[in-house]
């Protein structure tokens, strides 16, 4: 049984200007111990997918579709049951650590609170566990530092504290939403290595959301590429980078400047801008920017095609490597 199964997920927001379709018909699965990289830019719906899974959408948002976590249908759960899962069996880390660290409480209090609430530990035992977790994320001098306030830590350290807090109850699923985007590159490298180490140690399923292809390449086992609220390609990571099929995936890989290839005089850019959808387009969301667009691309949404074992593409065209 897969750890997480998502089927036909749809996320909508009612705004003053109309209904925004953030995610349209998204399906994927995640097993324990594997990392699925969710790649997309703005308007792709990647962050909204994460929030929908945790049922943390804003008030004007709604989700539809089936989400099964460890076999349980999440939409059938009450808010209380959901609260029991969040922070406990499924956890989330964000781009900005200060968005989940309370500036008025010491780190110790925030961490012990979680353990007391979800696992009924006493304050003393909770503190011991918290210190262990801080050590697992390589915070030096954890036993002393735990009594400090979040703002007394540097950016990289705050990120580690946030990760430690998320992992306190040894969750089975970790959703990481752009966990390293705001970090300096040398600190990012440390955090990426840390996430890899922690996943191996705790055997979690990790849903890694990012726009950075390097981060995807470093951590993911499988990749799902999103554009305009829809999935366009999914494959194991080596295969996706070696043989990208979808015009968007290819365009993305070709347009990113990289350190490991010689410098071309000009980058191969994808024209146009990522979409902002007030109403889902009838056809493929990438059609307006696609060099190989055909009339049918704007008329109906593309279906999944199997290109190779575990490699699927959603495109009207006949694609070959």
């Amino acid at each position: 049984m897969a750890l997480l199964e998502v089927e036909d997920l749809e996320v909508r927001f009612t705004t003053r200007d109309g209904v925004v379709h953030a995610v349209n018909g998204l399906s994927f699965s995640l097993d324990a111990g594997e990392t699925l990289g969710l790649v997309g830019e703005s308007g792709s719906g990647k962050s909204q997918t994460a929030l929908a899974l945790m049922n943390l959408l804003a008030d004007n948002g709604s989700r539809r579709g089936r989400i099964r976590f460890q076999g349980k249908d999440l939409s059938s759960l009450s808010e209380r049951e959901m609260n029991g899962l969040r922070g406990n069996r499924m956890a989330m880390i964000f781009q900005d650590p200060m968005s989940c660290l309370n500036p008025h409480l010491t780190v110790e209090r925030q961490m012990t609170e979680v353990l007391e609430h979800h696992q009924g530990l006493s304050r003393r035992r909770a503190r011991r566990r918290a210190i262990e977790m801080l050590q697992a994320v390589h915070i030096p001098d954890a036993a002393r530092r735990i009594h400090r306030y979040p703002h007394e830590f540097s950016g990289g350290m705050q990120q580690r504290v946030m990760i430690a807090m998320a992992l306190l109850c040894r969750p089975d699923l970790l959703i990481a939403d752009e966990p390293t985007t705001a970090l300096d590159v040398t600190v990012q490298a440390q955090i990426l290595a840390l996430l890899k180490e922690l996943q191996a140690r705790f055997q979690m399923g990790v849903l890694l959301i990012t726009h950075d292809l390097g981060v995807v390449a470093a951590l993911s086992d499988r990749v799902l590429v999103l554009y305009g609220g829809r999935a366009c390609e999914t494959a194991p990571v080596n295969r996706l980078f070696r043989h990208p099929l979808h015009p968007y995936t290819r365009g993305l890989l070709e347009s990113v400047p990289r350190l490991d290839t010689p410098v071309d005089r000009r980058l191969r850019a994808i024209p146009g801008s990522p979409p902002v959808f007030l109403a889902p387009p009838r056809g493929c969301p990438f059609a307006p920017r696609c060099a190989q667009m055909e009339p049918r691309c704007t008329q109906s949404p593309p279906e999944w095609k199997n290109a190779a074992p575990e490699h699927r593409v959603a495109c009207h065209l006949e694609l070959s490597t």
Partner: protein
Amino acid sequence: MSGPPLLEVEKVEVHFRLPGALPWQSRRLRAVDGVSLSLAKGRTLGIVGESGCGKSTLARAILGLVPITSGKIRLMGRRIDRCPPNTLRPLRRHMQVVFQDPFAALDPRMTVGEIVAEPLRVFEPSLDRRGRQARVRRMLDRVGLASSHLNRYPHEFSGGQCQRIGIARALIVEPALLVCDEPVSALDVSVQAQIVNLLQDLQQEMGLALLFIAHDLAVVRQVSHEIMVMYLGRVVERAPRAPIYTAPRHPYTRALLEAVPLPDPERERARKRTLLQGDLPSPLEPPTGCAFHTRCPRAEERCRTNRPRLIQQKPRHWLACHSPLETF
């Protein structure tokens, strides 16, 4: 490439005084701590570094947005540091800027046409309205925007388009130097390439000198002829592009390059690299001696006590290090 360089920065320091713990105390933030560089017409100098390295402060000091504490800055041979505003103003024509946040850089209450025309009002007051409009249209066209956008407002456009508007505004008076402070960091990945191409094309057409500040090493490599690496307000290495990326001599430069994850999973996971330990020190309390010694895998005793000077190793390769990496 003859004659004096377009831009000369000589041992510039920018220090800020911040309040200390007690009312009469103050602390000194050495944002830029002795930086020198020169830039010739038509060339691009890329400046890279992480938080607290002072690259943005350096850019703003060059632009005259922030006063410098000591040192000299010369634009086209004329001193522009500590210059009375009225003397500086006409020189500004030759030095313009593109900022990181494309939306914040545009006045939300003005139309695109008004925004792009503004430098013309200052530097070519003899132009009448029609003349200005014609120039604005031409410029918008050059940056890939339609003239129908003249009367629209910034919030109606995407990030990439707003950045084009910002570039149009900067280049309408045809400056010799364009300072780009993280011009693509806030843009979507698929749009970054467009803007990078645009800047390079315009540089070719107009003979611009670019001061390109960014934290993304791959982007900087794409556009720069020469690269300067900064750490905690100081220059640690400066060299043409090829040596920096293939044979860096400063341990920090190498650490930076090794830290960037490659979009190639097989190669990325097979990499052997040494990760830097610890966090970036705060610029308020820089380490003694060489600022990098607290994280440097090659630190020696003298790195802790003596600040290394920036020494020329080869014709255009400068290095500030006591125990540099050997060339390989």
